[in-house]
């Protein structure tokens, strides 16, 4: 495999080996605090990668531009070194349905996802919640409590978004490193429980 590194004759210092990457998807509408969330915990300043999306126009046909338009979507991301061999990447993605083309790539191999919501504007995140449900990706709903206040209480958010009882719905402060860390720990403990339960079910004799 390409990843096998052959020792270099005469190399003065050992070359750093590449860590194994793991990732968590941070989804949500515009302005809910995805980049703030990534930036609060990332050991690098959040970076932006741009992906090109081709939209097939629906509705009115425009003869000058038949069928397709191309838009660029910015994705902010950061990373956290977990230990010498493991690096966690956090990728932010918009949560509206027209960004669905990105979610397959992002979800594939992810440990889980966070849906960041502003309790005053819940509409933006229905599509991505639906998507994670169908993809079987463990996710939490994290309500960004900007100034320590929530517009709705968490039960009302859970009810409005119609998420299952087992899905954690919690409040956090996207600006606070420890608050973001604790929110990610809730996600990972939920993912761990799910995977151990699934494995227990799979190994139960019928």
């Amino acid at each position: 495999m390409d990843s096998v590194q052959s020792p270099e004759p005469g190399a003065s210092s050992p070359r750093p080996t590449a860590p194994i990457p793991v990732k968590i998807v941070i989804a949500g509408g515009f302005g809910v605090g995805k980049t703030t969330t990534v930036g609060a915990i990332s050991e690098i300043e959040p970076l932006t990668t741009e992906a090109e999306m081709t939209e097939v126009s629906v509705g009115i046909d425009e003869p000058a531009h038949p069928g397709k338009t191309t838009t660029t979507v910015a994705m902010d991301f950061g990373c956290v070194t977990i230990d010498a061999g493991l690096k966690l990447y956090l990728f932010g993605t918009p949560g509206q349905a027209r960004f669905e083309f990105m979610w397959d790539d992002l979800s594939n191999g992810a440990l889980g996802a966070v849906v960041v919501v502003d309790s005053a504007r819940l509409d933006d995140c229905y599509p991505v919640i639906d998507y994670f449900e169908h993809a079987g990706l463990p996710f939490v709903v994290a309500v960004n409590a900007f100034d320590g206040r929530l517009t709705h209480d968490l039960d009302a958010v859970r009810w409005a978004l119609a998420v299952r009882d087992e899905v954690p719905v919690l409040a956090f402060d996207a600006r606070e490193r420890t608050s973001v860390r604790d929110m990610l720990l809730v996600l990972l403990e939920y993912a761990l429980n799910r995977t151990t339960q699934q494995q227990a079910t799979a190994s139960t004799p019928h």
Partner: protein
Amino acid sequence: MDPDISLETQVSARPVPPPTAPPVETLPPELQAIIEICAEPVSVAEISARVPLHFGVTRILVGDLRASGYLDVHTSDVANPHDPATILRVIRGLRAIA
């Protein structure tokens, strides 16, 4: 394009490119930039952000540079996200953050 190359896939420059490969200085500037960024292992997403180039374009160029022997692309170094040991490792790492 290699579908195994993801945003988080790690890439590192080979210490010595194969003798068949033309010298790095003769490559187009964006390819030289990619090779330079990969002196230490980095993700494809970081390469895309730092050159900068769109992710789709970066993925193609990284694949080309792998094929011509300048880069190692660590597509097989992946963790199973359903492995409890992996999740526990990440939990322990995050708990250590103050």
